[in-house]
C-alpha cells in the first residue's frame, strides 16, 4: 500500500473518535494530511485516544481540537462538529473562564488546572449543569516549541454537589445555632428584664429571626371581652396596625381564625385564602405588603388562652415544620411572659387598692416581710411619727417606740412571725407633733398566698391612749377605794373599840347611872368631835386650835372672853388628836364643874397657848410642842377627891402612853388649874405649819 493507505491506517486505535479522525480528509484543512503532522501531535492524539478520561488535544495557532470517546459525554452538544474546530469556537460558552488559562499554558509551557468549571452537559436525554476539573498541559512540536495542549477533564459534579450540600447544611446549622442562642438570650432576659415592653420587642426580634419572616406581632387576650389586643408589632403599615388594634372572633384575619379554632393557622398565600378573600383584613394585609402569615395561639400552662403570636412574609410562604419547633419554644415563653405580666398587673392593682384603703383608715398601718422588717407604711404612720419611709423601713419602727417597750415588742413580733400566729399587744409610740408617747393597740396578721404560705404581714396600730389612761386611772381609783374601805373599816373598828373601852371604864368609875351617863356622853361627844375634825379634811390631820376651841366652846366657853386660844398653826395626826382631845375634854369638864368655867367662878378665865420649839441638835430629837392650859380667877380650887381617878388618868397617863416621850404636868394652883403638855412633834404626831411664836408670847398667857 502507498501513503494514502498508510494514512488511512492512522490512528490505529479503535473507537468512534479514532475512526472519525481516520476518515476525515485532513488534507482539506490548514493542518494538511496527517503524514505531514509533527510526530509530537500524532503521539498526543494516540495518548488521548487511549485514555479513559475525557481528553482533548488542541493544536496549532487556531488550537484545532481532537478528542476521545470519553469526551463525548462532556461535549455532546458540539459533537461531531467539534472535531477539527478551533477550541475557542467549540468552548465559546465557557471561553471567558478557560481562555486565560489556555493563554497561560501556551505562554509558560507549565500545566494549569481549572477546577469545577460548570458545563451544561447532556444527561440521559436532558441537559443539566455538570462540573469538571480540567488539566491543561503544554504540547511541544518536534522543534521543542509549545504548539498546542493536552486537556483532560474529570467530572467533579458529585463532589461539588456534596460540598454545596455540606455548605447548606452548615448554614442551616449555623442558623439554628443562632436561633437557639437567641432563644436562650431571650430566656435570660425574661428572667432579668422587668419591663415587659422591652421584652416584647426582643420577642419580635426572635420571632422574625426564627421564622425568617418580614413582620411579626404579639397580641394579648382580654378575657372579659374575648378579643385580642395588639401589644407589639414589627413590619406593619401603621394603618394596618391601627386596623388590627383589637381583633375579635368575627375578624377575617389569621389571628381571628386562630382565636376561633384555638389552633395554629397558616396562610401560605393570603390572596388565595377563602376566609380572607374580599374582606377589610385583606386590604390591611396588602397595605403592609404581606402575602403569607401564620398565627399561633398562646395558652397558659394550665390551658387558659392568653393571646397570639404571628409572623408574616412579603411573599407566599409555607413555613417549615422545623422552624415551628423553635417558634413553639418562643410561644411558650411569650405565654409565660404575658401570664406573668397579667399576674403582676393584678398584683399591682391589688397593691394599689391595699394602699388606698390603708391610707384611708385612721389607724397606723404597715407591712412586714418575714423577718419582721417593714417595707411600707401608710401616710398616718409617717405623719404621726414624723418618720420618712426610709427611716421607718426595716426595723426603723423600733426607733419611735417607747424605750421600755422596744425589746419586748421586737421579741413578740419575731415570735409571732416565727409561729405564723396573729399578734395583739399594746405599746407606746412617739407622736412627732409633741414628742409624747401614746398607747396603741397593735395587731399584726399574716397574709397568705393561694397555697397558704405566709408571704407578708400587715400590722395596724390603733390609738387607745385615752382608754388606756382611763383604765389605768380606774384601776388606780379602784385600788384606792379598796385601801380607803380597809382604812374605813379599821377606823370604825378602832372607834368602836374606843367607845367600848370608854364605856367600860366610865362605868367602872361611875357612882350613879346619871354620873355614868354624863361622863360617857361627854367623852363620846369629844371623841366624835375629834373624829369630825379628822374626817373633814383630805389628809388625816386636824388643827390644834380648832380642836381646843371646839372643846371649850362646846362647854360654854366664849372665845376671846372667858377663854383665849393662841398659838401657831399646828396640825396633828389622828392618834395625837384622839389622845389630846380626851385630855382637853377632861380638863374642860373639870373646869366646868370645879374651875374657871364653873358658876362658882364668875370671873374665871382659861388661856390655852402653845409654841413649837425647834429641833435639838441631835437627829433623833424632834421639835417639841408645848401646850399650856392656864385657869385663873378661880376661888376654892381643890381637886374633887372622887374625880381624881379616871379624869386625871386620861390627862396625865394617856398622853405619855400614846405619844412616846410626851410629858404632862398637872398643877392645882390657888388661882386655878395649870396643865402643861410637852409633846415631841414627830412626823406621826404632827407638824407646825408656821413658825413658832416666841417664848415670851407663850409664857405670857392669860395668867
Amino acid at each position: 500500500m502507498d501513503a494514502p493507505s498508510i494514512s488511512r491506517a492512522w490512528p490505529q486505535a479503535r473507537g468512534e473518535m479514532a475512526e472519525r479522525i481516520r476518515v476525515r480528509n485532513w488534507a482539506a484543512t490548514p493542518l494538511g494530511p496527517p503524514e505531514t503532522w509533527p510526530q509530537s501531535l500524532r503521539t498526543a492524539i494516540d495518548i488521548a485516544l487511549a485514555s479513559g478520561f475525557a481528553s482533548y488535544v488542541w493544536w496549532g495557532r487556531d488550537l484545532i481540537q481532537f478528542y476521545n470517546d470519553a469526551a463525548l459525554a462532556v461535549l455532546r452538544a458540539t459533537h461531531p462538529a467539534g472535531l477539527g474546530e478551533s477550541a475557542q469556537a467549540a468552548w465559546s460558552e465557557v471561553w471567558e473562564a478557560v481562555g486565560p488559562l489556555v493563554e497561560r499554558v501556551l505562554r509558560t509551557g507549565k500545566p494549569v488546572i481549572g477546577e469545577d468549571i460548570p458545563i451544561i452537559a447532556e444527561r440521559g436525554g436532558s441537559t443539566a449543569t455538570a462540573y469538571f476539573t480540567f488539566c491543561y498541559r503544554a504540547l511541544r512540536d518536534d522543534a521543542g516549541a509549545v504548539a498546542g495542549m493536552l486537556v483532560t477533564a474529570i467530572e467533579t459534579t458529585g463532589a461539588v454537589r456534596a460540598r454545596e450540600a455540606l455548605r447548606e447544611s452548615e448554614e442551616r446549622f449555623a442558623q439554628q445555632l443562632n436561633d437557639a442562642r437567641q432563644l436562650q438570650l431571650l430566656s435570660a432576659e425574661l428572667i432579668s428584664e422587668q419591663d415587659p415592653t422591652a421584652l416584647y420587642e426582643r420577642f419580635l426580634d426572635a420571632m422574625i429571626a426564627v421564622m425568617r419572616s418580614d413582620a411579626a406581632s404579639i397580641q394579648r387576650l382580654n378575657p372579659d371581652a374575648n378579643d385580642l389586643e395588639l401589644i407589639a408589632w414589627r413590619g406593619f403599615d401603621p394603618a394596618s396596625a391601627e386596623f388590627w388594634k383589637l381583633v375579635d372572633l368575627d375578624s377575617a384575619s389569621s389571628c381571628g381564625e386562630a382565636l376561633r379554632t384555638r389552633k395554629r393557622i397558616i396562610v401560605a398565600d393570603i390572596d388565595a385564602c377563602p376566609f380572607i378573600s374580599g374582606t377589610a383584613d385583606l386590604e390591611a394585609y396588602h397595605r403592609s405588603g404581606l402575602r403569607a402569615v401564620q398565627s399561633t395561639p398562646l395558652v397558659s400552662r394550665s390551658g387558659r388562652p392568653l393571646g397570639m403570636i404571628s409572623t408574616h412574609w412579603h411573599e407566599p410562604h409555607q413555613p417549615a415544620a422545623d422552624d415551628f419547633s423553635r417558634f413553639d419554644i418562643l410561644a411558650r415563653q411569650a405565654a409565660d411572659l404575658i401570664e406573668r405580666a397579667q399576674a403582676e398587673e393584678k398584683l399591682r392593682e391589688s397593691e394599689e387598692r391595699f394602699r388606698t384603703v390603708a391610707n384611708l383608715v385612721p389607724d397606723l398601718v404597715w407591712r412586714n416581710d418575714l423577718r419582721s422588717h417593714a417595707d411600707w407604711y401608710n401616710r398616718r404612720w409617717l405623719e404621726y411619727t414624723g418618720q420618712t419611709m426610709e427611716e421607718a423601713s426595716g426595723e426603723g419602727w423600733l426607733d419611735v417606740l417607747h424605750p421600755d417597750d422596744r425589746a419586748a415588742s421586737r421579741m413578740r413580733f419575731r415570735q409571732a412571725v416565727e409561729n405564723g400566729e396573729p399578734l395583739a399587744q399594746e405599746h407606746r409610740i412617739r407622736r412627732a407633733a409633741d414628742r409624747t408617747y401614746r398607747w396603741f393597740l397593735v395587731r399584726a396578721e399574716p397574709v397568705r398566698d393561694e397555697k397558704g404560705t405566709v408571704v407578708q404581714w400587715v400590722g395596724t396600730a390603733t390609738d387607745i391612749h385615752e382608754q388606756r389612761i382611763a383604765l389605768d386611772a380606774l384601776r388606780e381609783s379602784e385600788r384606792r377605794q379598796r385601801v380607803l374601805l380597809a382604812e374605813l373599816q379599821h377606823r370604825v373598828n378602832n372607834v368602836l373599840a374606843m367607845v367600848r373601852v370608854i364605856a367600860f371604864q366610865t362605868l367602872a368609875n361611875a357612882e350613879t347611872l346619871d354620873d355614868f351617863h354624863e361622863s360617857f356622853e361627854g367623852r363620846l361627844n369629844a371623841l366624835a368631835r375629834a373624829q369630825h375634825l379628822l374626817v373633814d379634811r383630805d389628809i388625816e390631820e386636824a388643827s390644834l386650835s380648832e380642836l381646843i376651841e371646839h372643846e371649850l366652846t362646846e362647854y360654854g366657853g366664849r372665845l376671846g372672853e372667858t377663854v383665849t386660844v393662841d398659838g401657831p398653826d399646828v396640825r396633828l395626826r389622828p392618834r395625837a388628836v384622839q389622845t389630846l382631845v380626851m385630855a382637853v375634854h377632861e380638863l374642860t369638864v373639870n373646869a366646868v364643874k370645879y374651875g374657871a368655867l364653873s358658876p362658882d367662878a364668875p370671873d374665871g378665865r382659861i388661856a390655852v397657848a402653845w409654841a413649837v420649839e425647834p429641833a435639838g441638835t441631835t437627829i433623833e430629837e424632834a421639835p417639841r410642842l408645848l401646850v399650856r392650859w392656864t385657869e385663873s380667877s378661880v376661888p376654892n380650887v381643890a381637886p374633887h377627891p372622887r374625880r381624881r381617878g379616871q379624869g386625871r388618868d386620861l390627862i396625865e397617863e394617856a398622853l405619855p402612853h400614846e405619844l412616846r416621850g410626851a410629858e404632862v404636868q398637872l398643877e392645882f394652883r390657888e388661882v386655878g388649874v395649870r396643865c402643861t403638855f410637852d409633846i415631841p412633834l414627830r412626823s406621826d404626831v404632827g407638824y407646825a405649819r408656821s413658825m413658832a411664836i416666841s417664848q415670851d408670847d407663850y409664857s405670857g398667857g392669860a395668867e
Partner: protein
Amino acid sequence: MIFRPTDAAGHDTMLTGRRILVVEDRYLLAKETDRMLRRLGCEPVGPAADAAGAFALLEREIDGGGGRLDAAVLDIHLGDGETVFPLAEELRRRGVPFLLATGYGSPGIPDAWRAAPRIEKPFAARDLAAALLVLIAAAAPFPRRDAR
C-alpha cells in the same frame, strides 16, 4: 363545861395572883386589859406602850426586883412601824408564855409566829381568862399551890 376551882372572889384559882405583862400602845385598850386582869384576880404588870418600855419593865420586874412574870398579853403593832416580835423573842427565850393580840384587820403575822397562841381583839374578860388558862396550864402542868 369544865368546873374549875374558884377563890372567894369567884376567880379561877389558876389565875389568882398571876403576874401578867401587858404591852399595848393604845392607852384605853391597855387600861381595859389591865382592868380585866385585875377583875380576874391577876396582877397586871405595865402596861407598856412600846418595846423599849416593855424591856425596861422586864429588867425592873424580873432581873432587878427578883419578881416573876407568869405570862404576857402582847399587842403586835406598837405604832410607828414597831412590832412586838423582838420582845416576844426575848420572852420565849426566858420561858415566859404569851398571847399575841390581833385584830382590826391588822397586817398578817409573819410565818415564824403563826404557831404562837393568839387572842382576837376586841376580847371579853372570859376570852382572856380562857386563853390565859390554856397558856399557863401548858407552861406549868401542875397548879401552883404556893400562889393560893
